[in-house]
């Protein structure tokens, strides 16, 4: 039977990261049957404004599509740093993310957040797992997020991988936004998200983990894409998916190209000259 653990306050992510290196993950092949939750979470407006500025969302009454992920993320970290969690937290790679927005969430609504892990399965480069986050208001689920993380390990060539959408672009698309992401981008996002994962903070902290420079948070790049699409996406009944391809090394310049269809957008976040594919974002409604 699922064990429910209710937390009274947001867990301290810095403490989790500080001790993460000590946890190697439990080699077992099963996920602990546990859900962590927080009830009646209130959005801090100052935090929301800071996040919105960093990600270029307008400050508005309803939350940015990605904002509930920020609230759920500390609970994800608690799940993944648990003693019985089968994968090591440090070095986990965010592969994909999926958000279903049932309806917009108002800044003054009290949110019941619960997070659990499911679907531990092989990946060609190791094992992957889904961290599911649900946000409910007065018993009604209004937002659901699924973050898929990879833990590199034994290669499993036969493993099934999630299929990317076709990336054909209409010929009419000739420009599109281009953003300069400075060296401090990871720290700026860490400051508003609490995600101080050392691979994002500084080249010096990223190098021991195998990256020549700091890399941008995937959820930051994704948020920038959604913020740029802005009013062209509906607020209700939206399913948004992102596939993180090659990390954005900081500093760098990226460009966004989007194809618009009546009930779908498909965006590619690429290096400035299109030489690297950083992320594929698909929105459907």
């Amino acid at each position, binding site marked *: 039977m699922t064990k429910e653990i209710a937390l009274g306050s947001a867990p301290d992510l810095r403490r989790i990261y500080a001790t993460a290196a000590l946890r190697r993950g439990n080699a077992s092949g099963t996920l602990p049957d546990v859900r962590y939750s927080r009830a009646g979470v209130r959005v801090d407006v100052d935090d929301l404004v800071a996040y919105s500025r960093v990600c270029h969302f307008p400050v508005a009454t309803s939350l940015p599509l990605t904002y509930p992920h920020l609230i759920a993320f500390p609970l994800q970290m608690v799940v993944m740093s648990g003693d019985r969690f089968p994968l090591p937290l440090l070095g986990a790679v965010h592969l994909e993310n999926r958000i279903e927005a049932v309806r917009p969430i108002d800044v003054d609504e009290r949110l019941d957040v619960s997070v659990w892990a499911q679907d531990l399965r092989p990946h060609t480069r190791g094992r992957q797992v889904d961290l599911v986050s649900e946000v409910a208001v007065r018993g009604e689920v209004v937002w659901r997020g699924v973050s898929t993380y990879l833990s590199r390990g034994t290669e499993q060539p036969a493993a099934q991988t999630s299929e990317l959408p076709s990336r054909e672009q209409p010929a*009419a698309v*000739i420009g599109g936004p281009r953003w*300069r992401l400075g060296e401090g981008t990871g720290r700026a996002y860490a400051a508003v998200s609490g995600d101080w994962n050392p691979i994002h903070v500084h080249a010096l902290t990223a190098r021991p983990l195998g990256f020549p420079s700091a890399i941008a948070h995937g959820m930051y790049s994704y948020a920038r894409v959604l913020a740029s699409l802005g009013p062209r996406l509906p607020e209700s009944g939206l399913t948004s998916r992102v596939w993180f391809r090659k990390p954005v090394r900081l500093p760098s310049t990226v460009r966004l190209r989007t194809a618009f269809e009546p009930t779908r957008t498909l965006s590619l976040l690429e290096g400035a000259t299109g030489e690297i594919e950083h992320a594929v974002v698909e929105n459907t409604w």
Partner: protein
Amino acid sequence: MASQPTPRAPRRVAVLGGNRIPFARSNGPYAKASNQDMLTAAVDGLVARHGLAGERLGEVVAGAVLKHSRDFNLTRETVLGTCLDPRTPAYDIQQACGTGLEAAILVSNKIALGQVDAGVAGGVDSASDAPIAVSEGLRQTLLAANRARSAGERAKALAGLRPAHLVPAIPENVEPRTGLSMGEHMALTAAQWGISREAQDELAAASHQHLAAAYDRGFFDDLVTPFLGVSRDTNLRPDSSVEKLSTLKPVFGRGDGATMTAGNSTPLTDGASAVLLASEEWAAEHRLTPLAWFVDAETAAVDYVHGDEGLLMAPAYAVPRLLARNGLSLQDFDFYEIHEAFAATVLTTLKAWEDADFCKARLGLDEPLGSIDRSRLNVNGSSLAAGHPFAATGGRIVASLAKQLKEEAGGGRGLISICAAGGQGVVAILEA
């Protein structure tokens, strides 16, 4: 029950004259002149030329694209420094490079409705005396300190200062939503439409030659007032030629397809312009002869953010709407003033109007608008030669076209087309 007032029929609006200071390349002779200095000089020259000293006008409308926060009331402050009656009201507008023409539209509309009888429309920009802002970090820190209610809170706020905050924020010529400069946007559109380097250089050379010829025959004698020792636009190269322009290296775009150079793109420029508009009755009372009538105008905008349309293509959409409303074809004009933001802008716009697919798919027209007689285009030079102080360009064009129609051609019809940042375009029709 009170009787209903009879609606007044719109009145014809006359362009009575214009005045500008010579335009100067940035960081040149006007480097230390402020927007207010230059706009005052342009308006005062206009006032002197038309004998309006001490006159209370209906309004003065002007603006600047690059504007200091202290200049929140730039135009009203300018009026107070001119020879106009200080009881002349004024307000600022800003529509990027469309500012000057949009100001003329606003004044014209009030005159047409009988709300004012006469007014001045203008614009000014200094790329030299540009505002520099404190960094966002310093600004937020100072605002937090300002909100603090105690010395302790203030000290805590100021403790957030970092050395990096002291680096100032200098205005950038980029579109906020795309991060691309206007030139980079134009290069994408030019490549999409296959605009050749040679065609761009030809247009640029013609602009210089036409402007120089206009100065030489005295065309600008009553349109330009010298300022700070400058009597001609400093960007003007009378001996410009396709051969000389062809030696310049491209500055926008990439690789073999890069065609846009400093020679076929407008330079950053300082300058100001103003136009006098009035009703027929007011003109007659003041013994001023109309140069032309401000007939109609249209603005359009395109969705350029995700590349659906080129940043500077909005005039291509505005013109057919204006033509349709006035029952005119593109060929029903004696003169065309298409603002040369870049030579490629003009050529792309003309090519789009000739393109059956574009006109059908994008403009919803069964037939393309067609070609124009290129000998009627920018006959007294345009922004490539004169330079382009953003908000001052509209006033330059309205005054020059009005005079061209009246005094050089003895009547006729002219079309003005100006592209603007943010994917906007402002177009207008003058008749004499």
